[in-house]
């Protein structure tokens, strides 16, 4: 049992890491990675929603009739999203302002709904917890990695501290929307390269 728990947890960190291996949840990946703080914040918000909704859906999986399961999943996910929205607004207001519309949009992020449908509705609570935590942290890592790259080279800062040498001219392109696409595309390519070397 422990072995399986570890497996469900770690698969989200590398084998099935979103959004690289599972091309899901791209919108926040692209929009919320101009700064490391935003990337981590978004990742943790999603992790919270994912863990909570996975657990609740797993608990209720025998009660929900299959014809209305999708609306029910949506309601559960939306509830946790609103909780996150209210809490970030109350305690992390600058983060809330920076992420803006993307916090409520976690509702339609394919990751929580996808995991609810594919995993939580079929597995026991404890495994759903491990799955949600793994996927959420994997997503957070991906976002952070992308954000580190974009913030250092796009702004010359890391967590808003200047770290590059004084004459450094930031590549503003990386901060702009097209830069996000290109950057993610390149990272995905590199991930594939590493992945194919393993086999």
């Amino acid at each position: 049992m422990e072995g399986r728990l570890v497996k469900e947890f770690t698969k989200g960190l590398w084998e099935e890491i979103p959004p690289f291996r599972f091309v899901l949840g791209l919108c926040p990946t692209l929009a919320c990675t101009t700064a490391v703080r935003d990337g981590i914040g978004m990742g943790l918000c999603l992790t919270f929603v994912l863990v909570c909704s996975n657990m609740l859906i797993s608990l209720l999986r025998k009660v929900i009739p299959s014809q209305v399961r999708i609306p029910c999943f949506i309601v559960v996910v939306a509830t946790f999203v609103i909780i996150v929205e209210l809490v970030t607004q109350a305690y992390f207001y600058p983060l809330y302002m920076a992420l803006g519309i993307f916090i409520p949009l976690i509702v339609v992020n394919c990751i929580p709904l996808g995991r609810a449908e594919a995993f939580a509705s079929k597995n026991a609570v404890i495994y759903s917890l491990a799955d949600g935590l793994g996927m959420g942290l994997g997503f957070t890592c991906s976002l952070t990695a992308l954000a580190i790259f974009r913030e250092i080279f796009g702004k010359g800062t890391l967590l808003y501290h200047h770290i590059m040498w004084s004459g450094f001219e930031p590549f503003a392109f990386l901060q702009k929307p097209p830069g996000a696409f290109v950057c993610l595309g390149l990272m995905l390519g590199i991930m594939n390269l590493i992945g194919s070397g393993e086999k």
Partner: protein
Amino acid sequence: MRNILKLIVVLTAFCVGSAFSLAFVRQATKERIEYQKLKILVAPAVKAVFPSYDNDPILERIKVKLTEKEIINVFPAKKAGNLIGIAYEGIGSGHGGAVEVLIGIDLNGKILGIKIVKHGETPGIGTKATESVEFLNQFKGKGVGSKLAVGEDIEAVSGATETSAAITEAVRKAIEIFPKVKQEVG
């Protein structure tokens, strides 16, 4: 028919449960959210209108009921526990909508400073007035009993007459309600 009933019961149960729990989260966070919003929006202005204070005027804000519908936030500034002044907003109508002005007043009704919080004036024209330190400093020292009218005791910024008038209007309105506010804040 039974199917429809089942559909209704399940979906409604989920929605009601969700709404119920969210109502609680909402009530728990409501105060804090309001504080955070004001902090971002008003705190810099409060800092600008008072020379010095050592409390958190945003946290200690007082809600003053002017009429049944009109409730305003009043921010008290304190030094070593003693009230030295209060700040609140006045609204004038400018060229591009409402101009919101925060004014800081000492307990005798004398203006300590004013700061524009929000406006929709034309950049480069109306903003000549909202950004002019000289213009805004004219209000310092005036207060209850002053006329506060453009062309009399306030000189408008040339080229931004309309905005100047709107700011003056906002200050005048704020001063008008000062006695009532002071009474409430006590």
